């Protein structure tokens, strides 16, 4: 029942043998050793398994790996620069203390990047709505809101500079 699928993973062309019932998060872990997306609630409600497929965030625990054939798949592992430098969203999470146990953090970082791509200057209501599908049992929510605002300011400032 397994068949080979080809797709781009974090910018590289890859292939994997997958069975139809295997989810994207399972394949990322088992075949590629990528652990940043992780299954927690298993119902797409907590966001720990967030993966970006063709520029859209999806719940990797509910997404069949087979559907990634020819897709562009990006995970938290590709979010930062080659030299280990953090992107503005990651740096803002560090600076705002917007994480505790860290299990949900990659999902929040990826969702925040999506949010800021869509709405560069979100207000608090935008932030709450966009991130409402991500849960943090440590409840670092106030710090996360602060981090999103900080990341937005920094991204916008660097965009201004480039002009």
């Amino acid at each position, binding site marked *: 029942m397994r068949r080979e699928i080809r797709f781009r993973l974090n910018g590289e062309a890859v292939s994997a043998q997958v069975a139809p*019932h*295997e989810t994207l998060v399972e394949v990322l*872990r*088992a075949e590629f050793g*990528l*652990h*940043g*997306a*992780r299954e*927690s*609630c*298993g*119902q797409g*409600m*907590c966001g*720990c398994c967030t993966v970006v497929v063709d520029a859209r965030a999806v719940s990797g625990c509910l997404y069949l790996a087979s559907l990634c054939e020819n897709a562009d798949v990006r*995970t*938290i*592992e590709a*979010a*930062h620069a080659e030299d*280990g430098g*953090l992107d503005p969203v*990651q740096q803002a*999470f*560090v*600076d705002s*203390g917007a*994480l*505790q*146990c*860290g*299990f*949900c*953090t*990659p999902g929040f*970082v990826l969702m925040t990047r999506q949010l800021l791509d869509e709405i560069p200057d979100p207000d608090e209501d935008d*932030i*709450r*709505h966009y*991130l*409402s599908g*991500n*849960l*943090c*049992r*440590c*409840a*670092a*929510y*106030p*710090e996360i*809101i602060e981090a999103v605002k900080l990341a937005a300011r920094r991204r916008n400032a660097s965009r201004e500079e480039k002009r």
Partner: protein
Amino acid sequence: MKRAGQSTETPQVGRSVPRLESWLKVTGRAEYVHNLRLPGMLYGKICRSTVAHGRIKRIDVAAAQAVGGVYRVVTGEDIRKLIPEPYYGPAFHDQPVLALEKVRYVGEPVAVVLAADPHVAEEAAHLVVAEYEELPAVYDEVEAVSSKAIVHDALKPAGTFPDLKHLKGKTNTNVALDFRLRRGDPDTAMGKAERVFEHRFRTQQVMHTPLEPLVSVAESTDSSITIHTASQSPSFVRIEIARLLGWPENRVRVRVPFLGGGFGAKLYIKLEALVSVLSLLTRKPVKISLTMEEQFFTITKHASTFRIKSAVTQDGRIVARECEVWWNGGAYADIGPRVTQKSGFTAPGPYDIDNVRIDSYALYTNLPPAGALRGFGIPQLVWAYESHTDMIARELGIDPIEFRRRNLLREGRPQATGTRMKDAALEKVLERVAALMNWNDAFDRGGGTLRRGRGIALGFKACIANTTSLAAVNVNADGSCTVYTSCVDMGQASDTAMAQIAAEVLRIPTEAVTVVHSDTDVTPFDMATLGSRSLFHSGNAVKLAAEDAIGKIDQLRQELHLPADAPIADVFKKKYGMRAGSVMGAGNFIPPYTPPDENGQTDNATPFWMVGATGVEVEVDTETGRVRLTRLVNVADVGAPINPRIVETQLSGAAIMQLGFSLFEKMQFDADGQLRNASFAEYKIPGFHDLPGEIVNEAVVAQQSTGPFGGKGVGETGTFGVSPAIANAIHDAVGVRLTSLPMNPEAVFNAISIKSGRE
């Protein structure tokens, strides 16, 4: 570490250092057991009891065993071949590794299917058939006292705790501990009282739901076993597994990386005994990773009933208080008896009361086991005594804060145990919460169908005693430092705090310190990471270890005729003629403690007191009963904060968690003890839209004189006052009193309807 070796005069303690593992966590690279995969590893899937109480007639594993790819199916009887008495537990040896003879709750593990492919194990697990002869079951903690349904045929105390010894071999009872405290003469005081108030409060069963579900991996040889586990108590796991196997402790190795949340769920033995036995039986590495659903069948927070009665003078002095608390421990005791006693003795609240009677009962029932959850019973107690306190104040027409002021347990005064209060900033915390709530200012009470109200509550906790922490600090030849502790970082930032403490002593930057994660072959004993004890206990041990190391380095400076401020790297270079060597310091911390007498009296009940108050402003929709928090104020005595930013995050995180327990979280059981909502689709936890409009967190200026650099624990403090503050605010808004949790919209609406029916 770029800055290794450079000394610094900058204070390291009191600095908001970003947590040391930030990079790992924001890049998804932090190590969790969840990620671990060993060569040749089998995955175990647990088959669970479908009845709440029953005798096992038959377990048929043939169909599951026949599934292609299934390695083996294991039942309790298989385990008995390896361990004749396979029962574990911190307080009672009552919990079998897999059910034996009886099952005691729906969801109890009865068999495990092992396969190299987790999907195969899961599929085959559905095919295991167990037949039971059903027995009468009991679910309610008060009914359990007199119920004919008996959960355990005989009580089996573990022998660890002296106050449980008298229960050994007791039959025909569900009472796993009957803690009592007597102070003064409550009967006479009640009889003579000007006013007597009596109320009954209840809390519901809830679950920690750490986002990294419980997970353990074991790998073994003939003579040794290594357990990789998401555990808050690696030292306990080693001792308990060694005891079960009859092995020396040094053949059992327990390793713990980061935890994806704990909150008390990952304490003592959870999956560790099971994976150990499975690995020994199969001679392969075995991993069991629970799903979110399965966590609900593993460990929970006690439901409780609390009857509280106070004798009060007309001018508002509490002269006597009676507390009767029933804790619903579920089918296995876990740490419930400790909750019953250690929290039980603070049941009268932070008030100066001469005459006190406390009876606190741990009960077995046919529900999933209950243990520690962020507060160790304290939030259940504060819920009752702070609601009760407000009710008395309002009944007497005294301002609730003024009433608390009149009765407050002040520094130096004896608490119910007789222990005199020390370093407990109750007064400051109460006054700060009043100030931050602008208590004396006019308050907008809303109108129409949206009514506003406000309330406060004040709670305290005695840190658990009698417990030990050890630590080691190794100063390397370049002046960098490695800390060895079995304290587990589950998100509370203990690594960072320990590094700050070591750095402060060694006068090096925090960033030059690394903390080795728990590995019982490497890191020394630590009782457990629980009950907000680690900053104080492990922190003191790390401080002692660092002082030991710096003492040795100072001695080297003297011997080598180096100036007192010579850089550490120069000391080693001179000593060894090149960069070589290291200096190891050891720290062993055990604070003094006096066990209570038969009346619960002791002159030293606890190493330190934690104090937390909450103020809330609410908006109540009178047509639907929905309660919205517009403002949440958390004030705490955490001693001197080691890392102010992280302290603030702990306070607000704890309060938001408790907000879920206050307003909507509830495990819903049907009449047969079946859990109806074991998933995030049906068991809701707080998300962004549940946040209060505004959150204010403040640690009052305080010192814990015995703490490391004046600090003490904070993990639980933010939970204490949340539930009663909300209930008090709802009463303030719409004049109805809720006495059961959660205060969901329907409960609030019904209370409003009953009240308007009466009017």
